[in-house]
């Protein structure tokens, strides 16, 4: 087994389509862990634990064990909101903590394993967390009724106070012990939406993690210190797929604080008392790399190759009518090619992990996004049965997809580094920013070729060919996500579109390239959203149609939610066409991703140095029931900033297989003066909640591009818009 080869013994697709709907059965031994990590007690000193999620302490605090990692998108607050609603708790008594790794209790119901991704946290917890809260409430009420000798129906619960008309009152804590002795109701009734106090209510709920995060008190993996702990950095091959041929550690071992240096096959691990000695030790290390199997192509070679492929038949990912015949008959074929670079996720906290292992059991602590598979990977590398390994999820300083590792490479590296130095040496592995940016697992480079034709104000034909790496083909996840040779994450958003086109075709090529790639916030929509929304805008322009009215006409009545956000954003922005007015033009885009619909209008001018300036973005979002409206707004604001920064500036280029950008001076990140004003409207909905962590990202790039077209600059065919160098 290599570091990039997780042990997943059996797997099968559980349910559904879509980017991140995955699931598999676990080997029989994988169940709730106990034993190791004795000090690790999620839920603290609770006396009432009616189910896997709710913990009520004698002081009436309610701690909700959160099965999803908190990496910024707000599941601590969101899942606690659902539980608090049904408990009729006061928000001030609510707390949140990560649940331990335990697939039987804490699986993501959309995946079948414990893990976070695909903007599913609220969606899959919607019923589960409300039921958990409702069961707890019923039991507390029963305990009070028993004590007061009154019928349960006469008891009220408001803001965490249990009361009876007789004047009796009590707190959750007072009845916690008695409630714990009662049987757990199996199917507690849920409130009607009309009775909600928290869900969807502006200002009712504040994030549970803001105060600590504003005071430097939040504990991330990098903050872990333990007696005897070694900080470990790894020297990795400058090219992907390289291996250690030989190394000389003599100088590294002379660095004060360096404890040991060991090969781990694909790299050399430096163990030290602290980060600075580890870094100095790595600097002093002499490694000769075996590049014989490494990827040596650069971005420009890959783009040239992909361009050729866009002109060859690929795998058909979507088709109706006969697009080729329609294009052959067209008076004029409009053609557009789009080039998307590799992108790094660059979460502010680089990858890291902590592990203690005594030879018989192990306790891992890190920002695990796929707990079930990472737990199995650590157990596999250490040769331990899964029940001898505990995994404690830590707050993560961002992810954007980076910690959702299909390959399990970080968990494997953590366990390998611990195993290599031997038991009873706690290790903390830390990646630097350079390790992060040059370390691969990028959003794949893509080239798209679009051809279309218009007739009588409508789109007559549409054909697209997408070329880029799949991060599922050839992995253990292939069976789950790839159907009929189509990796849904390569083509989502492009193989089916909102717009009525009589003759339509979408083809894909997934060439093999030795650069590790991965999903990146909004996955396939990061490129398909841009290309489709630029191309439809271009066709509508050619057809003499307005960008908003033209889109609505092409949607007909088949896409009411997409049409709904488009109309709402047009109203919010006071859309009167793209302009320009006083040097500022507007562009629009609408994208569905992860079950949510987002439309944006961007107001843009061109700066004196040829750099687009985005002044304001209006956004309408429909994500079903809006559980936490303010968190939804925050995710949309952040998604717009994240999407905009990469559309304008973001790229990892490869030169001879080596990543060129090594830190933020070269991998330019959006800064505060580049952030537009953002105005968000949330569509009232009774649909089940859908995702919001990712859907704010895709529309901003094409909205800006369409505004640039109105300014006379054309829609950028190659990203990033500023400084694209490949």
């Amino acid at each position, binding site marked *: 087994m290599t570091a990039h080869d997780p042990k997943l013994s059996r797997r099968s697709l559980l349910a559904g389509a879509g980017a991140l709907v995955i699931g598999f059965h676990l080997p029989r031994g994988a169940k709730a862990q106990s034993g190791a990590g004795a000090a690790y007690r999620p839920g603290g000193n609770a006396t009432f634990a009616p189910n896997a999620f709710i913990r009520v302490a004698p002081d009436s605090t309610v701690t909700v064990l959160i099965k999803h990692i908190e*990496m*910024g*998108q*707000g599941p601590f607050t969101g899942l606690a909101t659902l539980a608090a609603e049904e408990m009729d708790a006061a928000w001030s008594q609510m707390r949140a903590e990560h649940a331990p790794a335990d697939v039987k209790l804490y699986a993501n119901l959309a995946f079948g394993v414990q893990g976070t991704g695909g903007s599913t946290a609220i969606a899959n917890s919607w019923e589960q967390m409300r039921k958990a809260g409702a069961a707890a409430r019923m039991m507390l009420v029963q305990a009070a009724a028993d004590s007061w000798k009154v019928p349960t129906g006469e008891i009220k619960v408001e803001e965490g106070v249990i009361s009876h008309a007789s004047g009796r009152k009590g707190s959750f804590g007072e009845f916690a012990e008695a409630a714990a002795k009662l049987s757990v109701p199996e199917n507690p009734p849920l409130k009607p939406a009309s009775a909600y106090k928290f869900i969807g209510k502006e200002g009712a709920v*504040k*994030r549970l*993690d*803001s*105060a*600590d*995060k*504003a*005071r*430097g*008190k*939040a504990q*991330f993996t*990098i903050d872990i*210190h333990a007696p005897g702990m070694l900080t470990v950095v790894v020297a990795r091959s400058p090219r992907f797929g390289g291996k250690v041929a030989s190394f000389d550690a003599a100088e590294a071992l002379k660095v*004060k*604080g360096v404890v040991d240096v060991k090969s781990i096959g694909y790299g050399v691990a430096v163990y030290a008392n*602290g*980060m*600075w*000695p580890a870094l*100095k030790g790595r600097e002093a290390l002499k490694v000769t790399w075996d590049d014989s199997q490494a990827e040596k192509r650069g971005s420009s070679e890959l783009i040239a190759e992909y361009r050729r492929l866009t002109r060859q038949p690929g795998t058909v990912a979507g088709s109706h009518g006969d697009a080729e015949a329609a294009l052959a008959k067209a008076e004029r074929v409009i053609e557009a090619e789009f080039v998307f670079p590799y992108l790094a996720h*660059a*979460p*502010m*906290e*680089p990858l890291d992990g902590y592990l203690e292992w005594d030879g018989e059991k192990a306790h891992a602590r890190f920002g695990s996004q796929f707990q079930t598979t990472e737990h199995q990977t650590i157990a596999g590398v250490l040769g331990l049965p899964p029940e001898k390994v505990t995994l404690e999820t830590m*707050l*993560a*300083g*961002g*992810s*954007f997809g980076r910690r959702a590792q299909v390959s399990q490479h970080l968990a494997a590296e953590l366990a390998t580094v611990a195993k290599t130095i031997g038991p009873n040496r706690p290790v903390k592995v*830390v990646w*630097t*920013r*350079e390790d992060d940016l040059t370390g691969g697992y990028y959003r794949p480079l893509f080239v798209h070729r679009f051809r279309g034709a218009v007739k009588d104000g409508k789109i007559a034909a549409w054909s697209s060919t997408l070329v880029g790496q799949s991060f599922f083909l050839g992995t253990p996840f292939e069976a789950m996500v790839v159907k009929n040779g189509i990796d849904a994450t390569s083509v989502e958003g492009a193989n089916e579109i909102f717009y009525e086109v009589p003759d339509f075709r979408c083809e894909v090529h997934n060439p093999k390239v030795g650069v590790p790639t991965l999903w990146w916030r909004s996955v396939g929509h990061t490129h398909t959203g841009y290309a489709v929304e630029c191309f439809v805008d271009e066709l509508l322009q050619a057809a003499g149609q307005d960008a908003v009215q033209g889109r609505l006409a092409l949607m007909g009545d088949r896409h009411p939610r997409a049409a709904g956000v488009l109309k709402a954003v047009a109203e919010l922005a006071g859309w009167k066409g793209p302009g320009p007015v006083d040097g500022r033009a507007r562009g629009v885009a609408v994208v569905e991703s992860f079950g949510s619909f987002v439309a944006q209008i961007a107001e843009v001018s061109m700066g004196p140095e040829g750099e687009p300036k985005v002044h304001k973005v209006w956004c309408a979002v429909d994500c079903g029931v809006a559980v936490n409206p*303010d*968190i939804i707004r*925050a*995710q949309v*604001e*952040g998604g*717009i*900033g*994240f999407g*905009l*920064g990469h559309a304008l500036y973001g790229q990892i280029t490869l030169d001879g297989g080596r990543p060129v950008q090594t*830190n*933020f*001076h070269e991998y330019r*990140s959006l*800064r*505060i*003066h580049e*952030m537009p004003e953002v105005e968000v409207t949330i569509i009232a909905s009774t649909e089940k909640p859908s995702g919001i962590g990712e859907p704010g990202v895709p529309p901003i790039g094409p909205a800006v591009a369409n505004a640039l077209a109105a300014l006379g600059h054309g829609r950028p065919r190659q990203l990033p818009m500023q400084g694209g160098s490949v």
Partner: protein
Amino acid sequence: MVSLKVNGTAHTVDVDDDTPLLWVIRDNLGLTGTKFGCGVAQCGACTVFIDGQPLRSCVTPVSSVGASEITTIEGLAGKEADAVQAAWTARDVPQCGYCQSGQVMSAIALLKENRKPSDRDIDLAMNGNICRCATYVRIRAAIHDAARALEI
């Protein structure tokens, strides 16, 4: 051996002279509110005050700080700090939260110099602090909130 004064307490640590202040604060003194984000003074996550001035601790050798008063987020006190941290909490500024120690430090430094910053002043003072979650809309709003609170 290097001596330094952090949050009012004198420390002597056994590290190489070239060790960045950041790693002394985090690894030797165990004050982990100050964060590592880039190591090359590009992101601002490591911002501390040296004699009241914001500075990137990741590129500041510990041997260069001498007898200066170093303040980390753990050692903050005063009305600007209170106003900024209260505004950050009330606005729910943080998402992942990792960069926010540095953002808060830069915001406090701004308000100490300028009690009524314009948007342009905020741009100039805060553009050395990267937030990959792009919480910038709320950072700006929270600084204005804090400025208003300090007027009272």
